């Protein structure tokens, strides 16, 4: 039923592809733009920037978010920074180098053309954000400062103290609110998208549920843009915000949109370990800490001594030992896996033996406490607030946690999914990070998609429908979709089981973390494929959702989201099982070098796996998009 996956990548040289495509795309003239309705779901960096830009162009935009304000989207929590190939530091950076680093960092599992375009527009993002008033860090001369970040050997990361995400999102949000005031964007807060509406094979609208009064509403448009973030909360414990979920993307998947590379999930090495069983989320400490902190564990198993009582001879600085060239700055997946390794060996630290030390005592001895305080003061304060320990005196304890998901809905070069009229931006799509995302690249991708790519490519799609009004919401397809949502809501309320939604979410998270976490095995994944459906079956039978549908009912909201995470988890396991290689965030223990490094299989797996929903209970179909590398040579990553 599905043709071959055509990513619509322009021909020609890498450098010319985007320029050529921008020229060859059809345009919608300014006075025609106001005849097109576009729905943007999600108001994070990608959604807000896209909606604002479309509004400025003159489209009639409707923004739907389940938050109480667009400013709360989880982009806000990104700490570290945003990459851009500005080469302000004169240290040899270039668009090609950012492209190359991103492709390599992604372990050669992303599209050359997409990544090159991302690097190309990265410079415009910095200009745009600065003009909006985003207060990036500056040097004494008043010009923008940069730092080196997460495995990059050039300083190309722009940052705003420890809150780059918040500042960039506030920039995009302010642009969005400007359009709301101008009347080009209609903002619907606390409206959760629960259904994609299809008509004649195209996406023509969505159905939302109002979280305050439960009202179910159909929205019609010429195109639907999903910018709904990632699915890291499938692990229950992650650095994602509590409300992050896969529902919007998953409901689109169930309507035919392909879900690509779900097994590519990123584990962030520097998070605060869980302190008890009721931990609700994990807090990330900026990766920049690894620039000055040294990571170690005791050499001996179950060493009960306090860290300052352990002499250097009894410490194992395992990253420095194994990777002398990069040391503590190896990429996230390498750092994470090694931390898991030493904890699994029984050398973990802290009351629950579930962390490794990140020690600043050498840096403080070398640079002085004041310098460290100036660089990381706010992070140290945050650490102390959460753990009650003072990191100036005691080494921090860190452990990896799920942070980002590279997989997502499949999109072509123009960010349109295989469903015509359905565009997917930001973390919700799969496009640019391959099997592993570089630090400070998520903000870049979200804003590139929203500010500089979608506003062009959406016109190419819409120009076909000039003169056609958006489908009337009285059409039966809308009523059917509304009914489906209403049925779903009443189903949850009528189960009347015994355990809470959170209980099942936590149980699901444990399974996913154990079997589809940092290291995966065939047997583990097979177990996941039997245990997840079993737990899901119990969930559908025994979950307890109290209250009613017509009020603010958080259990009800979560019930549907967790159900989607169950289905997604199963797909992740399938994808991980099918990908018989290790690459980036996907580490199959069967596929490693003698030194324990990931071993890719470029012969058989240099492709995107895009899964097609085949109906409830049926095995999904795996489609492949071959990845062609014309500009970089595939090498085995080595950070020795």
């Amino acid at each position, binding site marked *: 039923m599905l043709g071959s996956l055509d990513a619509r990548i322009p021909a020609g040289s890498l450098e010319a592809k985007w320029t050529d495509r921008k020229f060859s795309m059809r345009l919608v003239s300014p006075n025609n733009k106001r005849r097109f309705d576009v729905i943007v779901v999600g108001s994070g960096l990608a959604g807000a920037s896209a909606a604002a830009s479309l509004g400025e162009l003159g489209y009639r935009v409707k923004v739907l978010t389940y938050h109480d304000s667009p400013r709360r989207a989880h982009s806000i929590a990104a700490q570290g920074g945003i990459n851009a190939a500005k080469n302000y530091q004169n240290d040899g950076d270039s668009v090609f180098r950012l492209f190359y680093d991103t492709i390599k960092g992604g372990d050669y599992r992303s599209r050359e053309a997409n990544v090159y375009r991302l690097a190309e527009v990265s410079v415009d993002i910095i200009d745009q954000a600065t003009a909006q008033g985003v207060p990036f860090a500056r040097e004494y001369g008043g010009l923008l400062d940069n730092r080196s970040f997460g495995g990059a050997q050039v300083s190309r990361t722009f940052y705003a103290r420890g809150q780059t995400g918040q500042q960039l999102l506030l920039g995009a949000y302010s642009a969005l609110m400007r359009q709301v005031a101008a009347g080009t964007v209609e903002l*619907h*807060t*606390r*409206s959760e998208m629960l259904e994609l509406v299809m008509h004649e094979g195209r996406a023509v609208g969505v159905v939302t549920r*109002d979280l*305050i*009064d439960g*009202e179910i*509403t159909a929205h019609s448009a010429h195109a639907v843009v999903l910018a709904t973030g990632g699915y890291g909360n499938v692990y229950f414990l992650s650095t994602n915000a509590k409300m992050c979920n896969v529902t919007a993307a998953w409901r689109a998947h169930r309507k035919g949109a392909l879900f690509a590379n779900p097994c590519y999930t990123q584990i962030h090495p520097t998070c605060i370990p869980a302190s008890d069983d009721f931990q609700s989320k994990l807090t990330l400490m900026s990766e920049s800490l690894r620039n000055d902190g040294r990571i170690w564990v005791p050499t001996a198993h179950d060493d009960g001594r306090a860290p300052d009582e352990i002499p250097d001879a009894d410490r194992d600085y395992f990253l420095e030992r194994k990777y002398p060239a990069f040391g503590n700055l190896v990429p996230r997946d390498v750092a994470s896996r090694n931390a898991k390794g030493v904890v699994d060996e029984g050398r973990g630290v802290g009351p629950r033996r579930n962390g490794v030390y990140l020690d600043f005592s050498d840096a403080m001895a070398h640079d002085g406490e004041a310098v460290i305080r100036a660089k990381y003061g706010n992070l140290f304060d945050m650490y102390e607030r959460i753990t009650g320990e003072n990191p100036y005196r005691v080494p921090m304890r860190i452990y990896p946690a799920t942070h980002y998901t590279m997989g997502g809905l499949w999109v072509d070069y123009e960010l349109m999914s295989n469903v015509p009229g359905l565009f997917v931006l930001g973390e919700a799509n799969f496009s640019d990070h391959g099997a592993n995302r570089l630090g400070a690249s998520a903000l870049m991708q979200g804003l590139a998609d929203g500010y500089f790519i979608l506003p062009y490519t959406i016109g190419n799609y819409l120009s076909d429908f000039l003169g056609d009004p958006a489908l009337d919401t009285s059409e039966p397809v809308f009523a059917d979709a509304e009914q489906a949502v209403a049925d779903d809501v009443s189903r949850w309320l009528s189960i009347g089981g015994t355990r809470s939604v959170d209980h099942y979410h936590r149980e699901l998270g444990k399974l996913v973390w154990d079997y589809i976490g940092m290291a995966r095995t065939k047997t583990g994944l097979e177990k996941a494929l039997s245990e997840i459906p079993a737990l899901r079956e119990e969930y559908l039978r025994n979950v307890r959702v109290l209250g009613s549908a017509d009020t603010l009912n958080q259990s009800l909201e979560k019930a549907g989201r967790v159900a989607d995470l169950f289905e997604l988890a199963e797909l992740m396991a399938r994808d991980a099982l099918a990908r018989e290689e290790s690459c980036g965030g996907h580490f199959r223990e069967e596929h490693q070098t003698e030194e324990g490094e990931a071993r890719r299989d470029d012969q058989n797996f240099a492709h995107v796996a895009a899964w097609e929903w085949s109906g409830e209970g049926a095995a999904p179909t795996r489609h492949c998009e071959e990845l062609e590398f014309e500009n970089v040579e595939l090498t085995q990553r080595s950070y020795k």
Partner: protein
Amino acid sequence: MAQAITRASAPPPVRAAPRVRLPWPLSIYQTAVGKKWVMGLTGIALLGFILVHMTGNLHLYEGPREVHEYAETLRNLGTEIVPRTWLLWAMRIGLIAAFALHIHSAYSLSRMSLAADQRYPGGRNYIAASFASRTMRWTGPIIGLYLFYHLADLTWGWFNPDFVRGDPYHNVSESLSSVPVAIVYIVANVALAVHIFHGAWSMFQSLGVNSPRYNHLRRYLAATLAGVILAGNLSFPIFVQAGVIDDDGRSFVEELRHHGAAEEDH
């Protein structure tokens, strides 16, 4: 759809836009920040008056003649140009206007805040708000009532059987020698000082006078002003009660008038 649009907009405003937009610069007074400016500026005027009034009253410690000369000086202000008491009246009118504006802006801002505010049935725990800042709405009316009493007592002589028009020394010593009256003055002036303590600091904020390097001085200044005014003003009832300010019921001005009349008779 209508529901969705409602959901997209904010809750209804608690304060309607003014029905009539006054011409500039009166329109500034129609806004809350504008009223705060008026509060601040009139506060400065009133504070200046209070300070001068208190300082002038120190003549009480010199004696009836000096107080009378001081009063005459005030009446004769500007006589080089305008007729006698005109300038004094101009200042009085200015003060009355400042006072009226101060009260009106306080009243309308309080109404606005009361409309915007909701109580916490579980109670609340103040961290920064001082006793002075939280009692402005009480100390203000106390001062207003006191001012009325003060004028009625010492300017119009409604309550004082021994009142002599135009003889402040006599009237003060007669009035304040009564214990209940002295207590009224003491209570009211404590309220005034408390009001000034917050007001004198607050006006810097309202008028946008803020420079991080000097900000810490604003509290000291407010405390000093309030303290000086309190000390000065409280001294009068206390020293009248102590008998330091006392003319034994003989009005210097009355005697002067008799004396003057007698001279004319000759």
